[in-house]
Structures are given as structure tokens and as C-alpha cells.
């Protein structure tokens, strides 16, 4: 490759003298032609002109010759780049403004994408994760409920769709014998679970088929974190014994650090021995299953396969749940499902911010394009092709975008740190968000996209440049031409529209948050301390033992100074997870099997309602007369009562059949009706609910509520002492003011609302800048015209009105367009809007007023300048 080598050598010699050589050579060539002409008898002037003409375009010749020495594609880009960077350096303020705008947009977009990627897109760390399915049962009313152990065994043994299937079930157990009793978290699994997750132990072994058998020796597999924390990473741990709920488990192995399935747990226990005690197909625990689809099998056909098994079982082993079928969803989607909607809203919002940023940059570039119109015209006149000019412009905007993108990545890093710190726990894998390769690739793509998008406008304007006009000295028509104006105004209209959409969406969410925070949750949430306990099952086996424990504890707590009253409930408001079950009303016609209604069933003691400050609508609360073995009673809430009767008071005396008409179950008489309490969180409407008295339906898991005279936090230490003194082996699950519980129920909403508000604010600042810039430019371009109008006797107020009219028309067009978008947004936000109708006109009016105000504010200065044009000075300049 001698040619290539010559070029390299030449490049290394820094092309000294080449241009001079070529110039001199061409000069000599023309001299030869000149002399030839003279010899033919032309006059010197003729000879000179003819020589030049005959030689041809010497500049192009010289450039083409010089070009052969370059690595052409790279060189032109480098040349464009050099030129672009030079023009950036020459106008640092302008460039800084563009960089800042792009960095803001790209940074915010990248940060949100890093969260979205981590939560939704990054594959879960299991082999063949795309074939992993989350399995459960589905009923005519609900899908994805737990699968019973016996059904699971049938599925595992009789299916044709899965290569392997494992069951799992989260469990909480009390650890004793290693310091204070603590509540620990475990996952019950069948041995196949570890094949599906692909985990290998770092010491000891995993579970084997033998561990799945009923009556197997109880064994436990430790998580690395638990092993390090509780056992000091003792290498001899395998073989030792762990006491869980008072029962010894032999440690068989330790898992590697960092592995987890869903939430992190302390250890894994074999599910088989515990679950195999169930005797019928309708005995539900909280078992879910994980299946590895055979290659090429779809979720639908897998579901059909399992449904077939369920149908066969309904015939061979009939029971109350013969209408149950299967549920199979992709594991990835199941894990990420809840966070999807809010994250998509954020991604869309931040994408809109990026678009506004691009629009601003585009309009800045357009304005500079006008300032450079003459330069571009000259380049075109001396032979630069349209393609070459376009490449130059695009290279310049890409250079800006890449610099902006780099700055944006830095910003994104800060943003992301803030998101991880402030983000709610309900966004899966948020803490794992990082600026890794896919995220950086996204940032690069966003930067290039922005560069091309922003570069498009000046390009379109430049294509229409009228050379003769542009080259004329002082021509007013240079102002980017008609197309440039249309583009600029279009950009402003788009910015206003997008800003309106964002303002409207964030308004909806802010209002929802305010409603959720201030709405009456049905009880008095202040001055309440919530103590969550879970009695170890080994020690507290009987109803009596549990009742005994809680009645003693409540009595002790009530005696504490500062405690006004005490009550206990199984599931406190906003606890989220709660148990619903079938029921029927005894004196109503029995519903069809598939229409049996479902409601929340909760357990509360006699002091609970008054302690919480829940209002009584009719009847009475539980009392000490509701004894075990006595007439079974229930309190229902208003929502429940209204479902069946026209007035809460009419519910009193009716009887509820637990489990519905097709299942054995107790019957409870309604003795009281409570006002609605929203069980699912502050931002959810109250749901029909039934409370059963603790005295008749005991549970080991209760939350003790203490109404305190002062700050509830002040009683935490005392409450902890009381629990410890009653029984050291009862672990405290949580102990915190109820307000903190409630706070977490709004965490995701708060996070989403705050971010959306920030994006809307960012959009407003950018749009304000955009409006200001374009109007200011318009005033500059029209100063002469204004001066003439003034000279012709126009009043300044008329000038002001003329300019303001233009601004107003732009704003109006933007708002009309934005209103369309807002209408779409109000439909797509759906469940994120709480407590009022998203389509209510007030919100859109409010958003419109805000954006109008914004437009007026940013148009103010340019309009003022328009009205203050100094006619005399301008007319002198003519």
C-alpha cells in the first residue's frame, strides 16, 4: 500500500508547504498559458483573462489535488468539526446556552432511563429468564392467586409445557438462641427452585429431592448476608443448627453474596415437608410457582396445558374450587408490573422535556443561521454544494449535541444518585440503577437524536436560502426567509403545547397527592404508635395462648403513662396486603357459583375502633361480651353495608356466611357499621370490609395501636421494654408512628409527583427562554419596520399591540394544540389520578392560565423593547 503509506508519511510531516506548492504550480501553469496567449498576439489583459478561463476553477483544482492527500471521509468530518468548534469558541455565550439546555434535557432523560432500565428492562439475573414463568391459580374474579400444594404437585407431574417447575412461599420465623429473638425472613422452596435460579452454594450443598419429601430432616440454606451478619461468616456453619420458631434446622450450605429472588431473605427452607401436610385441593397457603417453559412453548399454550389439568382434576377430585384455572405470566413482567405505569409516565414526561430542549436549541441555531446567512451564501457562491453545506451544519449541531450529551451524563449521574436516595422502595431494583453501558448508549443515542433534531431546522432554512438576497448588503429579507420564520414560530407553538401538557399532568398529580394527603382516611391518624408483632408459632399454638399474650400485653401498655387507649388489629389501614375471601349474606338469594362476592376480612379487638377514632355509623363496636364460643359477630364498614342495604343501619342483625354458600364456613351476625377506612393506602378508595372480633378469631400476627397523649415516638422505648419483659422470644416486626406507615403508602405517588413537577418546571423555564428568544429576535428583525411605522405616526401603544398580537396568536396556537395533548394525558394517567375527575375543566383551565401567564411573562421584555424602538436613530441609519 505505497499510496496509503505516502499519505501517512505526509500526514506525519504536517503537510508543510503542500498548499504553497500547489498554489505556485498552478500560478506557473497560468503563466505558461498567458505567455502562449501573448505569443498568439492577444493584448496582456485579454491574455490574462483567457489564461485564467482556460485553466478553469483554480481553487477547486487546488482543493481536489490537496484532498487526494487526505483520508477523505475522516478528514472532511474533522475539518467540519474544527470549523464547528471554532464557531463555538467564537460565540461562547451562545454555545454555553445551547450546551446547558442540551445537558439539562439529556441529563434528566438519561437519569430517568437509568432507573427505567434498572427496574424494567435489565434482565433478571437468572439463566433462561425469558422462559421463566410466574404461576398461580386464577378464579373467575381474580387471577394470580396462590396455588394449592396439591394442585401444584399435579401441575408439576402432569404438564407438557414446562421443562421444570418449582414452588415457593415467603415465610417469617423467629430466630432464637443467637442473641435476642429476632424476626427473620425466609423463602420456602422446592429443590428445583435452585435449578431455575442457577445459584450454586459457596459452601455446603443445595436442597436435594430427599429434602422435598415429607418427614425429611429439617434443613436450612443460608444467604451470604445472613451468614456474615449472624454467624460472623463462620466457615464451619454448615452442620450447625439454627433455631427457627423453636424448631432446630440443620444448616446445609451458604449461598453466594447478592443473590435474591424478589425481596432479599435470610435463608431458604424446603417447602415440601411443610406443604405436604395439606389434604385437599382447596387448601390455600401463599404458595406461588415458578416454571421454566420448554423452548418454543408460549405462555398461552402453557396456560392451556395447566388449565387442562385443572379441568381434569375438577372431574376426578371435585371440590369447592372446581372453577379455578391457572395463571401464567412472564416472571419479568410480574416482578416489574406495578412500577411500569409510573415509570412510563416519568419517561414520557422527561422525553417531552428533552423535546422542548431540542426545540430551544433548534431555534437558537436558527437565529445563528440567520446571522450566518451571508457566510453560507458566500460558501455556496464559491462552489460549496448543498450536500457539503448540509454536512457542515449537521456536523456542527452534532458536535454541540455530543458536548451537551457529555455534560448531560455528568448531570445524569447526580440526578440518578438523588433518584436512588429519594426513590420509594416499591420501584424494583432502584438501588441497582447505574450509568452502565446500555444507559450510556442511551445517552449517546439521545444526544445524537437531539443533535439531528435540533440541526434539522437550520438545515431546512439554509436549503431555502436565496443567494442573491442574502448577498445583498443589509437586506432585511435575510432574516431566515419565510421558511425560517415558519420554523421558528412552529417551534414556539410546539414548546407551548408540550409545556401545557406537562403542566396539566403535573397539576393532576399534585392535586391527587393533596387530596390523598388531606382527605379524611376515616380515622384520626395522628398520635398513634403502631407495634407490629408476630407470635412464634411454636410457642403460641392455641387461640387461648395468643389471646392470653395479647390481653396481657395490651393491659401492660395501657398502664404506661402517656398512653390514652390501646387496641389491636390484624391488618392496619394502608397495610396494603390484606386477605379477601368469599362470603354471602345469609338471608339474600344465593349467588351463582361464579358470582360469589369477595370482601376484605380483618380481625380487631374491642378497643381498636375507639383507639383509632373510627366513627360508628350504626350498632355497636365489639365488646367483652363477644366471648369465644358465644354468638359469632362482625362489624362491617359503610361500603360493605351500602352494597347490600340502602342505609347502614339496615345492615344490623343480618348474617354473613364466611366462604359463601358453596363452602363450609362460620356465620357472623352484623352488630355494627363503621365509617369507611381505606385499607389499601391513602390514595385508594375505601373497599368493603368486615372485621371479626379478636376474642372469637385469634391471630398471632397483630398490630397493637396505642393512642398517645404526646408524640407517639416518645413511647417507642417503653413499648419495646414491655414486649421484652413479657416474652423475650417475641420479635418486634416494626414499631413506629402510624403516620410513618401512611407515609410509605404515598411514597411512590410523592416521588412521581415531585419528579413530574420538576419536569414541568424545567419545561416552563425552557419554554420561557424559547418564547423570549424568538420574540426578541422578531423585534430585532423588525426594528426598522417599527421605526418607519413610528415615523409615519403610529402610536407606541399600537406598535405594542401589533407585537403582542403576534405573541398572543403563537401562545393561542400552542395552547389549542396542548389542550389536545392534555386530553390524551388525562385518559392515559388513569389510576394515578385520585380523588377527582381527571377530565374536570378546572385543571385544564388552571394549566392554560399558568402557561398563558408564563408566555406573557417571557414576552414582556421583547414587547417592551418593541414599543421603545428609537425611531430617530434607526431612520438616521438609512
Amino acid at each position, binding site marked *: 500500500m*505505497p*499510496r496509503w503509506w*505516502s*499519505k501517512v508519511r*505526509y500526514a506525519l510531516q504536517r503537510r508543510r508547504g503542500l498548499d504553497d*506548492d*500547489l498554489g*505556485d*504550480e*498552478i500560478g*506557473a*501553469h497560468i*503563466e*505558461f*498559458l498567458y505567455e502562449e496567449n501573448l505569443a498568439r498576439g492577444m493584448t496582456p489583459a485579454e491574455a490574462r483573462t483567457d489564461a485564467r478561463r482556460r*485553466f*478553469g*476553477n*483554480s481553487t*477547486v*483544482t*487546488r482543493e*481536489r*489535488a*490537496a*484532498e*487526494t*492527500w487526505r483520508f477523505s471521509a475522516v478528514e472532511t468530518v474533522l475539518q467540519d468539526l474544527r470549523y464547528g468548534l471554532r464557531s463555538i469558541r467564537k460565540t461562547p455565550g451562545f454555545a454555553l446556552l445551547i450546551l446547558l439546555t442540551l445537558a439539562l434535557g439529556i441529563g434528566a432523560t438519561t437519569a430517568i432511563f437509568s432507573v427505567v432500565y434498572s427496574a424494567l428492562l435489565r434482565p433478571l439475573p437468572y439463566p433462561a429468564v425469558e422462559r421463566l414463568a410466574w404461576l398461580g391459580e386464577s378464579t373467575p374474579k381474580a387471577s394470580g392467586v396462590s396455588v394449592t400444594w396439591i394442585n401444584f404437585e399435579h401441575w408439576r407431574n402432569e404438564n407438557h409445557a414446562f421443562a421444570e417447575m418449582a414452588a415457593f412461599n415467603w415465610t417469617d420465623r423467629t430466630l432464637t438462641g443467637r442473641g435476642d429473638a429476632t424476626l427473620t425472613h425466609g423463602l420456602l422452596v422446592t429443590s428445583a427452585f435452585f435449578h431455575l435460579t442457577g445459584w450454586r452454594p459457596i459452601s455446603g450443598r443445595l436442597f436435594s429431592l430427599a429434602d422435598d419429601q415429607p418427614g425429611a430432616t429439617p434443613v436450612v440454606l443460608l444467604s451470604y448476608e445472613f451468614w456474615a451478619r449472624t454467624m460472623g461468616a463462620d466457615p464451619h456453619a454448615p452442620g450447625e443448627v439454627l433455631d427457627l420458631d423453636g424448631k432446630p434446622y440443620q444448616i446445609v450450605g451458604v449461598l453466594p453474596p447478592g443473590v435474591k429472588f424478589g425481596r432479599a431473605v435470610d435463608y431458604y427452607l424446603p417447602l415440601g415437608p411443610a406443604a405436604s401436610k395439606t389434604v385437599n385441593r382447596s387448601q390455600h397457603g401463599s404458595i406461588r410457582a415458578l416454571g421454566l417453559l420448554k423452548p418454543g412453548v408460549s405462555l398461552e399454550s402453557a396456560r392451556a396445558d395447566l388449565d387442562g389439568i385443572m379441568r381434569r382434576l375438577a372431574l376426578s377430585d371435585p371440590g369447592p374450587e372446581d372453577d379455578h384455572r391457572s395463571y401464567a405470566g412472564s416472571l419479568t413482567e410480574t416482578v416489574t408490573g406495578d412500577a411500569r405505569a409510573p415509570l412510563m409516565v416519568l419517561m414520557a414526561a422527561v422525553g417531552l422535556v428533552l423535546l422542548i430542549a431540542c426545540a430551544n436549541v433548534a431555534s437558537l441555531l436558527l437565529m445563528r443561521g440567520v446571522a450566518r446567512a451571508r457566510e453560507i451564501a458566500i460558501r455556496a457562491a464559491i462552489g460549496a454544494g448543498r450536500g457539503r453545506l448540509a454536512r457542515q451544519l449537521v456536523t456542527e449541531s452534532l458536535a454541540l449535541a455530543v458536548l451537551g450529551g457529555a455534560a448531560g451524563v455528568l448531570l445524569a449521574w447526580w440526578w440518578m444518585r438523588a433518584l436512588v436516595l429519594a426513590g420509594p422502595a416499591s420501584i424494583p431494583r432502584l438501588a441497582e440503577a447505574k450509568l452502565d453501558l446500555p444507559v450510556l448508549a442511551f445517552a449517546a443515542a439521545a444526544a445524537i437524536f437531539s443533535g439531528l433534531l435540533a440541526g434539522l431546522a437550520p438545515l431546512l432554512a439554509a436549503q431555502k436560502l436565496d443567494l442573491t438576497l442574502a448577498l445583498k448588503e443589509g437586506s432585511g429579507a435575510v432574516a431566515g426567509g419565510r421558511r425560517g420564520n415558519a420554523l421558528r414560530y412552529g417551534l414556539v407553538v410546539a414548546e407551548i403545547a408540550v409545556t401545557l401538557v406537562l403542566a396539566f399532568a403535573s397539576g393532576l398529580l399534585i392535586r391527587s397527592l393533596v387530596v390523598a394527603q388531606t382527605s379524611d382516611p376515616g380515622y384520626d391518624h395522628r398520635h398513634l404508635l403502631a407495634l407490629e408483632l408476630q407470635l412464634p408459632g411454636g410457642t403460641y399454638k392455641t387461640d387461648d395462648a395468643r389471646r392470653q399474650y395479647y390481653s396481657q400485653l395490651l393491659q401492660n401498655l395501657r398502664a404506661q403513662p402517656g398512653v390514652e387507649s390501646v387496641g389491636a388489629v390484624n391488618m392496619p389501614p394502608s397495610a396494603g396486603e390484606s386477605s379477601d375471601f368469599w362470603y354471602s349474606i345469609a338471608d339474600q338469594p344465593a349467588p351463582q357459583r361464579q358470582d360469589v362476592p369477595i370482601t376484605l376480612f380483618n380481625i380487631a379487638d374491642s378497643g381498636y375502633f375507639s383507639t383509632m377514632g373510627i366513627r360508628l355509623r350504626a350498632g355497636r363496636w365489639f365488646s367483652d361480651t363477644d366471648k369465644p364460643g358465644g354468638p359469632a359477630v362482625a362489624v362491617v364498614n359503610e361500603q360493605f353495608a351500602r352494597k347490600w342495604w340502602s342505609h347502614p343501619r339496615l345492615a344490623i342483625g343480618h348474617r354473613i356466611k364466611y366462604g359463601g354458600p358453596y363452602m363450609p364456613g362460620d356465620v357472623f351476625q352484623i352488630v355494627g357499621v363503621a365509617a369507611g377506612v381505606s385499607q389499601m393506602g391513602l390514595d385508594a378508595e375505601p373497599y368493603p370490609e368486615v372485621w371479626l372480633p379478636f376474642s372469637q378469631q385469634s391471630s398471632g400476627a397483630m398490630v397493637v395501636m396505642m393512642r398517645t397523649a404526646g408524640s407517639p415516638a416518645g413511647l417507642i422505648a417503653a413499648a419495646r421494654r414491655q414486649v421484652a419483659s413479657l416474652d423475650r422470644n417475641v420479635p418486634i416486626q416494626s414499631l413506629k408512628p402510624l403516620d410513618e406507615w401512611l407515609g410509605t403508602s404515598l411514597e411512590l405517588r410523592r416521588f412521581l409527583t415531585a419528579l413530574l413537577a420538576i419536569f414541568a418546571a424545567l419545561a416552563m423555564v425552557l419554554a420561557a427562554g424559547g418564547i423570549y428568544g424568538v420574540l426578541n429576535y422578531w423585534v430585532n428583525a423588525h426594528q426598522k419596520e417599527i421605526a418607519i411605522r413610528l415615523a409615519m405616526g403610529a402610536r407606541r401603544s399600537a406598535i405594542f399591540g401589533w407585537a403582542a398580537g403576534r405573541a398572543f396568536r403563537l401562545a393561542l396556537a400552542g395552547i389549542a394544540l396542548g389542550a389536545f395533548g392534555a386530553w390524551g394525558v388525562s385518559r392515559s394517567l388513569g389510576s394515578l389520578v385520585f380523588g377527582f375527575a381527571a377530565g374536570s375543566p378546572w385543571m385544564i383551565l388552571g394549566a392554560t392560565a399558568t402557561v398563558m401567564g408564563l408566555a406573557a411573562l417571557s414576552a414582556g421584555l421583547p414587547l417592551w423593547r418593541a414599543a421603545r424602538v428609537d425611531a430617530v436613530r434607526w431612520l438616521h441609519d438609512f
Partner: protein
Amino acid sequence: MSTVDELRDKLELLQGTLEVLILRSLRAGPNHAYGISQFLDTQSDSQFVVDNGSLYPALQRLLQQQWIAAQWKVTPNGRRARYYRLTPLGRKQLVAATSKWQRFVEAMARVLAPEG
């Protein structure tokens, strides 16, 4: 009008032919760009259009291949001009290219010749 017709009648140079023609023009001895274009014009009976926009880049490519070398010299009538001369490598290339072109021309002629 006649110039337009003249231009239309002239032959467009095929890709790669200009380089061979330049090498050939230098076989007689070193020459400058003007001289080369004069030579090509007269030798081809003004049949070839050699525009300077092609000649100069072609010269650079030959320099890069090291088939020719350049040197500033003074012309007989006292002007400075850049003279190109064939290198030994260029001489070999010229021989190879000439035989290749002759084969090409003969083949073209055989194919295009009237039947019989």
C-alpha cells in the same frame, strides 16, 4: 455553438487512463503540468479532454504511488516550474499498464469488429 459541439465530440477519459497517459508523457523526460497537458492535447489530436481539475489530483495520486517524483526547476526561458519525472517504479508500472491497455484495446476491437 461550435465549441459546444467540439466538447461533445471529445472523448471522456476512462477511469484510470489519465494516470497511464501521464506516465507515458513523462517517458521522454521530465515535464511540468502545463507541458503534460500540452503533450496529451497534441498527441491525441485534441481528442482527449484533460481538465486541470482532473490532471492535478491524478498527479498527486501518482506521487503517492511513488511512480513519479516532483522537483522545482527553472525552465529554459527562466521560469520556476514543478517538474515531474518517472521513477524506476513508475517505468515498470508504465510497461505493465501499456501491455494491459493494448490487450484491452485489441479485445475491444475484436468484439466490436463487424462479423465475417
